[in-house]
């Protein structure tokens, strides 16, 4: 007996109302993270699950050069979308690099954006020091055994990684999250959706309590752009990234004309490498440029002994994906 109430929402507005009215209520979609944290690890304590799984928020629609992905579309469904396969290879590759087929059949794209960190200290209720769970309690990971942790956007208060694969190309592509609550609808760029920990690691996104992710909007890449996702990990399948990179590049006459770069496995939030993009655009499409871009991307990392290896590994990951999509 967990004492958690279960309610199935009849429509999006009642789903919003059912969560908004109760401070500890939570939306339940795919459940792959939420049920694990609430029922197994017991580090989150919802009073009520509002099941949104049957709401009519599924599927992908294309309007011109934009995709509108309804939030309950599963990772497998999005990966199977014909436009995603043809026009956004980096998104398809990142989706299929994540989790297992079973989990991808359950996990929704909205839930993927909101997945919680895999930091073992966060997920262990026996650990007292976790600023993300209990503000002001400290960070056991900074002092303890860290490996699957962040080096960008991190600091002494928190080094918890955002472990999503799909979010890496989504930040690179300037995806927009559509949010709905009782006050209406607002659209937030994914790059502005996440909050780096600072002194409040418990605050992870700009989402308000009761606000529902209804869609993710995504522009298609311009014609002639090549893209891909590279994930480096301890085993070759079904494992989180040590480092990853999503790149989309167009080269005209040997010069980089367009570049987008997102990084995974390194950030407290899905990381957009703006500095690297500035190095790339206008520069010759060669190894020297890619290395310079990598150096720009991983500037001023915050490392602990267990994560120092990620600095060079992330740079090499960037160079390799850039080489792959330009040759």
């Amino acid at each position: 007996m967990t004492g958690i109430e279960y309610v199935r929402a009849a429509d999006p507005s009642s789903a919003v109302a059912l969560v908004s009215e109760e401070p500890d209520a939570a939306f339940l979609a795919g459940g792959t993270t939420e049920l694990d944290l609430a029922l197994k690890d017991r580090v989150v304590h919802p009073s009520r699950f509002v099941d949104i799984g049957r709401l009519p928020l599924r599927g992908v629609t294309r309007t011109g050069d934009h995709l509108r992905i309804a939030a309950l579309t599963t990772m497998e469904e999005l990966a199977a979308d014909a436009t995603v396969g043809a026009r956004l290879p980096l998104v398809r590759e990142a989706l299929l690099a994540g989790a297992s087929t079973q989990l991808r059949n359950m996990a929704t794209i909205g839930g993927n954006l909101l997945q919680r960190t895999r930091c073992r200290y966060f997920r262990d209720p026996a650990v007292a020091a976790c600023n993300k769970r209990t503000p002001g309690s400290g960070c056991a990971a900074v002092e303890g055994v860290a490996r699957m942790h962040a080096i960008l956007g991190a600091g002494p208060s928190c080094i918890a990684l955002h472990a999503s694969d799909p979010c890496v190309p989504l930040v690179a592509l300037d995806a927009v999250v559509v949010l709905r609550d009782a006050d209406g609808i607002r659209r937030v760029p994914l790059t502005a959706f996440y909050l780096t920990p600072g002194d409040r690691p418990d605050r992870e996104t700009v989402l308000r309590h009761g606000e529902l992710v209804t869609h993710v909007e995504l522009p298609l890449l311009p014609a002639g752009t090549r893209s891909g996702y590279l994930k480096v990990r301890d085993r070759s399948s079904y494992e989180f990234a040590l480092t990853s990179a999503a790149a989309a590049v167009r080269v005209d006459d040997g010069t980089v004309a367009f570049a987008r770069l997102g990084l995974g496995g390194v950030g407290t939030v899905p990381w957009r490498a703006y500095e690297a993009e500035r190095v790339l655009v206008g520069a010759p499409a060669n190894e020297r440029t890619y290395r310079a871009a990598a150096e720009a991307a991983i500037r001023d990392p915050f490392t602990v002994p267990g994560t120092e290896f990620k600095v060079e590994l992330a740079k090499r990951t960037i160079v390799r994906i850039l080489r792959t999509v330009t040759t």
Partner: protein
Amino acid sequence: MSSATTARSTEVTVQLRVNERTYPVRLDSTTTLLDALRDQLHLAGTKKGCDQGACGACTVLRDGKRIVSCLTLAAQCDGSEITTIEGLADDPVQEAFVRHDALQCGYCTAGQVMSAVALLREGRAGSDDEIREFMSGNLCRCAAYPNIVAAIREVAGGS
């Protein structure tokens, strides 16, 4: 749904459709599909391994798609068609697992078979590499992987 009149419901009544039979059950609201199958319906073929979505031992099909039943609430499955290992009698995948000795202790096998059945329907058994990649959500601590791949390859029409 009027929230003002919603009574707190930490118990739920669910019509579980499993292997083409309907089971009306009354459950604690956070009972997983896995626990409902094993403890309420006494369909113990589906195994509990990690109980955290990491090992795949509890794989079942929901509306034809493979999922892990340990991270699914029974309540979420009201109205869904669930298929478990008990619903696959005389399936060619099971027979191929026996022929290829694709197990040692057998604890992961129900999940492996359910996942393999789905993988074949997904059309992802085109090569050994593809089989390995799309079976990676099912762990086998006895490491019977080569024989599991061989069994699936045979059903897919390979050697």
